[in-house]
């Protein structure tokens, strides 16, 4: 049997491989151009999503659970008023002290988010001496690099924008709810008025015009840090956040590679 690979075949294979590699940027640019043209994303004309890569950092130690971010998000994005629809919300974690002499290093974990934390949090019913520690965790779309929601959408109404935002084209969404089931973080809901899937868009209509998302804008403690990886500024807060903190993501075992980075969260946070 003749297993000799001819030079012609070898060159052909190499040429194909190089061609494939060279075609990738073109393919990505074409995809971005098509999305720019066809998808309704509320971005202004002239905005080029390939020139940005947005991400969000959350410093849990800074969050005071005031709920201004939730309120601002509801107002900015016309999120339904009901207490079961949120693009962003705040969770309060209360970790109780363990039973004395027991095997546990920490006690029961209580989590709540009354009205998404929009009106702040009422005083805890757990007596102060029984609380080992307590903290607030703001939640929003995790901007997954491998977004299961975009993967699941049967018509491509949910899509990964090249700038990192995961967007929903509500004019194209058929309202099947598959993306809502596929999101591991509970960040999506079916808008009862439009009957389409909805989620945090990073206030796409704002960030594409040089503004910050509403939740970041109103946060009084700068617990939410927003940035653009492709256009770092001087003393970039995102770079500083990553340098200074041990950074975590939610549910890393699912392989979604979120681009919402958390600092100072505890192992109980899911």
């Amino acid at each position: 049997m003749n297993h000799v690979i001819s030079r012609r075949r070898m060159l052909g294979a190499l040429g194909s491989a190089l061609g494939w590699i060279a075609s990738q940027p073109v393919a990505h640019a074409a995809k971005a151009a098509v999305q720019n043209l066809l998808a309704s994303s509320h971005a202004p004309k002239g905005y080029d999503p390939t020139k940005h890569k947005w991400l969000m950092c959350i410093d849990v130690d800074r969050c005071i659970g005031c709920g201004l971010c939730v309120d601002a998000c509801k107002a900015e994005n016309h999120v339904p008023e009901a207490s079961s629809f949120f693009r962003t919300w705040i969770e309060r974690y209360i970790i109780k002290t363990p039973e004395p002499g027991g095997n546990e290093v920490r006690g029961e974990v209580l989590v709540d988010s009354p009205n998404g934390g929009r009106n702040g949090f009422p005083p805890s019913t757990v007596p102060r001496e029984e609380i080992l520690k307590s903290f607030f965790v703001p939640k929003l779309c995790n901007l997954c690099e491998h977004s299961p929601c975009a993967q699941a959408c049967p018509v491509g109404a949910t899509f990964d924008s090249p700038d990192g935002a995961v967007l929903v084209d509500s004019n194209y969404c058929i309202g099947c709810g598959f993306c809502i089931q596929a999101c591991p973080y509970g960040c999506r809901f079916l808008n009862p008025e439009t009957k389409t899937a909805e989620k945090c868009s990073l206030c796409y209509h704002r960030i594409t015009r040089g503004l910050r998302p509403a939740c970041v804008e109103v946060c009084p403690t700068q617990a939410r840090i927003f940035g653009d990886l492709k256009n770092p500024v001087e003393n970039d807060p995102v770079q500083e956040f990553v340098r200074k903190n041990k950074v975590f993501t939610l549910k890393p075992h699912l392989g979604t590679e979120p681009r919402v980075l958390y600092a100072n969260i505890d192992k109980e946070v899911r």
Partner: protein
Amino acid sequence: MDPALTPVLQAAGEAHHLATSIEGYVYPNEQNLLWSVLIVVYPYITGLVAGAFIMASLVRVFNVKALTPVYRLALLTALAFLVCAPLPLLFHLGHPERSYQVMITPHTSSPMAMFGFVYAWYMMAVLLLELWCEYRHDLVVWSERERGLKGALYRVITLGVRDISPAALHLDERLSKIITVIGIPSAFLLHGYVGFIFGSIKANPWWGNVLMPVIFIFSAMASGMALCVVLYKELCWFRRKAVDDACLDEMGKFLFYALLVDFTVEGLDWLHRLYAAEESISVLKQLAEGRLFNTLLVIQLCLGTLLPLLALGATQILPGRIPVWFRQRIYYNSAFLILVGVLAMRWNVVIGGQLFSKSLRGFATFKMGLAGQEGWLLSVGLIFLPFVVLGVLVWLFLPEPPSGPEAKETVAAPVAN
């Protein structure tokens, strides 16, 4: 009252309602269940299609002659349920008028986008083609005999092919066999795909499971075969005809083995979950012991699986000792229990998978209304609609064989007689 207060009061009322139905912590967007009973009905109906087709293929491909009396009934059952299968999906969509987008701009990474193609393939390339080959000779005969609208319908369905020479019929026979051979993996694909829709959701530990498509396939086989048993008995009763004992015994045998494999695979799933004991096991155990106790442990496991397994098992182990009339009752009642059990299984998967939070810290409650898009009435209607369609199909394509000398002229059609 100040009108500005109305939304606030509404929100407060809703918050109170949600607070009473939530246990522990669930993400705020998870408080209302998204997929309701329509999505329970959809895999149930699709499963019945796949199972009924597999029952028919036993005759055509595996040459199980004893099942010949039920062959056509099984095929027509598959068709009647397949026609109705997309309806629950369509009704549950937020924008049903946009559903065509799944066909014209399918997102290839989405299993749900494949629905239209899998459905069209199964409907056009498998079921209708097989039925046409199977019925072609009869259609030609009937179209000559029948007058009026019915005759015209038969003439149209012949598609103008009126050759019923032995050579043409032989070709039909061969074609039919080839289509059935293609049809078996297609039936597996149809329902395995439905299982994959759930199994591919890694966000949900109750669904995201490699065994899910396999579980769906075998539960579909059990439910489809059970439906054939029930329909065959009912049709015989309706037509005052004696039941073919050998046929029913054979159906009972295959029903038993399908249920046994289904039980084994589902048992393996639980065994693996309990042994691997991943992060979610605690919440899943609470789910099974709490909110799903009745539908999972009582209806699905005990009534829908173990009881029919024991009863059908007895007919296999002690065939001679159980009188025929009692065996028939066992088959019928077991089949009925299996149908209820598989419906409960679909409920447990679809509703159960949404009763616990993806935070793994709490549970929601499902309250279903009577009317409306996701209510009882529509769902019950959608479950019964295929039976109405089947009634029409049986009237058209499974006529009672005429008695007397005329009978010899009719085709030796394998009908429920």
